[in-house]
C-alpha cells in the first residue's frame, strides 16, 4: 500500500493493489474467473481499508506502535483475505494446465465449490467490500447447494484419487473395502484391556469393596 501510494506499480500476488484493478464487472457466481475476481476485490478492499485505518490513527496523533496494535484484528483479517485470494487464484490457474478433460471438469467443479463456499463463509467481508449484495449471496448459496448435490456421487472416487492405502490411512472407518463394522469389532477385541476376561484390578479393588460391609 505504501509503494502504491508513491505511484509504484506492483507485480505478482499483490498486483490487485494497483489502481488499474478498479471497476470490475458484477459478480457472476457461475464463472470461476468472476469468483477469483471477487476474492481479489475483497482482498484489495480489506488491505486498503486497514491501511486507511492505520493512517487515520496516525493522523489522530497515535504512535506507529499504538496504531498498529489498535488494528491487529483487522490486519489479520486482511492477511487472511490475501491468502484466500492466492489460494483461489492458484487453484483456478492450475485448471488451465490440466490436459485430460474429465479431470479438468471435476477439478473445475471442486474449484467452483471451494470459491462459493469461501464466499458464503465470509459473506460479510464480500458485502462490506461492495463485491456482493444480498440477492447475489442468495444466488451463490443456491449454486453451492446444486454443486453439493452434483458432487455427492463423485465424493468416494475423489477420495480414491488421493490413493492413500489402508496401511497409510491407519483408519478402521476409512478402509477401502468399507467393511467398517467387522473391523471395528476386531480392533476393540485386541485392545489391552481385553487381554484377560477379568482384569487384575477386579481382585485388587472391586472384590474387596464388594465383600466389605459398608
Amino acid at each position, binding site marked *: *500500500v*505504501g*509503494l502504491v501510494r508513491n505511484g509504484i506499480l506492483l507485480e*505478482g500476488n499483490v498486483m490487485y493493489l494497483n489502481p488499474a484493478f478498479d471497476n470490475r464487472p458484477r459478480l457472476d457466481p457461475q464463472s470461476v474467473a468472476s469468483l477469483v475476481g471477487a476474492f481479489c476485490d475483497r482482498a484489495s478492499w480489506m*488491505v486498503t481499508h*486497514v*491501511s486507511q485505518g*492505520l493512517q487515520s490513527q496516525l493522523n489522530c496523533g497515535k504512535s506507529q506502535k499504538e496504531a498498529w496494535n489498535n488494528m491487529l484484528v483487522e490486519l489479520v483479517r*486482511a*492477511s*487472511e483475505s*490475501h*491468502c484466500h485470494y*492466492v*489460494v483461489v487464484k*492458484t*487453484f483456478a490457474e492450475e485448471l488451465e494446465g*490440466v490436459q485430460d478433460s*474429465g*479431470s479438468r*471438469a*471435476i477439478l473445475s467443479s*471442486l*474449484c467452483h*465449490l*471451494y470459491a462459493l*463456499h469461501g464466499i458464503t463463509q465470509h459473506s460479510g467481508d464480500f458485502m462490506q467490500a461492495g463485491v456482493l449484495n444480498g440477492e447475489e449471496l442468495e444466488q451463490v448459496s443456491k449454486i453451492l447447494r446444486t454443486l*453439493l*448435490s452434483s*458432487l*455427492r*456421487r*463423485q*465424493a*468416494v*472416487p*475423489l*477420495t*480414491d*484419487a*488421493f*490413493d*492413500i*492405502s489402508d*496401511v*497409510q*490411512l*491407519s*483408519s*478402521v*472407518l*476409512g*478402509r*477401502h*473395502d*468399507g*467393511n*467398517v463394522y467387522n473391523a*471395528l469389532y476386531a480392533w476393540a477385541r*485386541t485392545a489391552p484391556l481385553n487381554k484377560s476376561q477379568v482384569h487384575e484390578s477386579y481382585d485388587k479393588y472391586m472384590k474387596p469393596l464388594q465383600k466389605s460391609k459398608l
Partner: protein
Amino acid sequence: MNPDIKKEREGPAFDVEAVTNLLDGGRDVTERRRQLEALVENDPEFLSQPLSFLSQSGRYDHAIKRCARMIQQIKKLGLTDPKDISLYKRAVFCGRPCPLDLHLGMFLPMLLNQATEDQLEHFFLPAWQCQIIGTYAQTEMGHGTFLRGLETTALYDPRTQEFVLNTPTVTAIKWWPGGLGKTANHAVVLAQLYTKGTCQGLNAFIVQLRDLETHAPLPGIIVGDIGPKFGFNDVDNGFLKLENVRIPRTNMLMKFAKVEEDGTYIRPPSDKLAYGTMVFIRALIVSEASYVLAKACTIAIRYSVVRRQSQQTPGAPEPQILDYQTQQHKLLPLLATTYAFHFIGNYVSKMYQNISESVDAGNYSQLNELHATSAGLKAFTTWIVVAGVETCRMACGGHGFSCASGLPELYTNSAPSCTYEGENTVMMLQTARYLMKC
C-alpha cells in the same frame, strides 16, 4: 467389499487414475510412490500393532526402531533422491511425525544451506550416515516466534577461538525441538552472538550434545524430554540447558555471517537468510496440511457412505448419511479445500525453489515476498486443516471419537502446526506488514 461403497465406485464421471497422476505430478511419480509404499508395506519388520494401544515410552521405542530400520533400508535400497527418501519415510511412518524429522528436515538442510565447504566436509557425511543425529534448537521456554527476543548467548573468546554458550535464565532453556530429548547427539542452536563486547544478533551454532559412543550428555549439557503432550507421542520433544558450553569457532554456521579469528563480525548480506530453513519448513507444512486433510476427508466420506442413519420413508432402508445435505455441506467443501491446498502447497514449494536459486545467485530481492507468502499460507492452511479434521471427526458421529477412526491422531498431530514454525496469528501479522509496505 461393502456393497454401498462398491456402488459408489461404479462409473465415476472422471478417470480416477488420471487425477491421482495429476496430484502426484505424473504417472511415473505415482508408480514410484506405489513401489516405495509397497516396499514398506511388504516388509515384515515394519508390521506393528495399533499404536493407540501403546504407552508414550512404547510409542517412542516403536518409532526409533522404525527409524533405525528405515535408515538401514534407505542405504540398502540405494535411495539418494530426496523425493524418494521423503516418500519412503512418509510410507514408513504413515505421515506421522518421527524422532528423526528435525534431523532430516532441518539439521541436514541447515548444513546444506548455511554451512561453508569446510563445515560440510566435516559434518555432512557423518550426519547423512546418522553417526551425527541433529536437531534444530531455536524455540525457548519463554520465547517463540519473536526471534530477536531469544536469550541464549554465544560469547566469542578470541583467546581460545571458541564460543561459550549459555542459557542464562530458566526462560532461555531451549524447549520443544523434536528429537532433542533422547535421540539427537548434536543440535543447531540459535543464539545471540556477542563478539568484541557487541551483540551481533541471532546466529546458528552446531553444538555436540551427547558422547558419540555412550550417548551420555556432555559436560554443561542438561537435556531431556518435555513430557506427555496433546499429540506427537512418537517424538521426544526436548529441553536443553547450556552451562558454559565451549565449541570451536568453526562450529558457527558461516556461509553468510562470519566471525574471524580476532572476533571481527562480518554481517550476512540479508537478515532474512537466517530464516531460510524455517521458510523451507513452512513451505513443507503447507503441502503436509493438504495430505492430512486428504486423509481426514477420505475417512469421513468413505464412512459416510457405509453408515446409514434414520428413516426418511417408512419401510425403506435407512439412507446413507452422505445423502443428507448437512453431511455434504460438512464434507464436500473440505474435499475441495484439500485439492486447493494441494495446489497451493506445490505453488509455495516452487516459489521457495525459485527464490532459493536467486539467492544462490546473489539476488535477495524476493526474500521478503517469500517470507510473507510462506508465513501467511502456512497460517491460513493449518488453521483450516485443524478445524477441518475436527469437522470430519464429528461427521463420523460417535465412532469418530474412537482412536480406531484415526481421526483423533490426525487431529492431535496436526494441531501443533498452528504454533510451530511460527504461531499463526504472528505469521498473519508478518504477511500484513508486507502488504502494508506494498
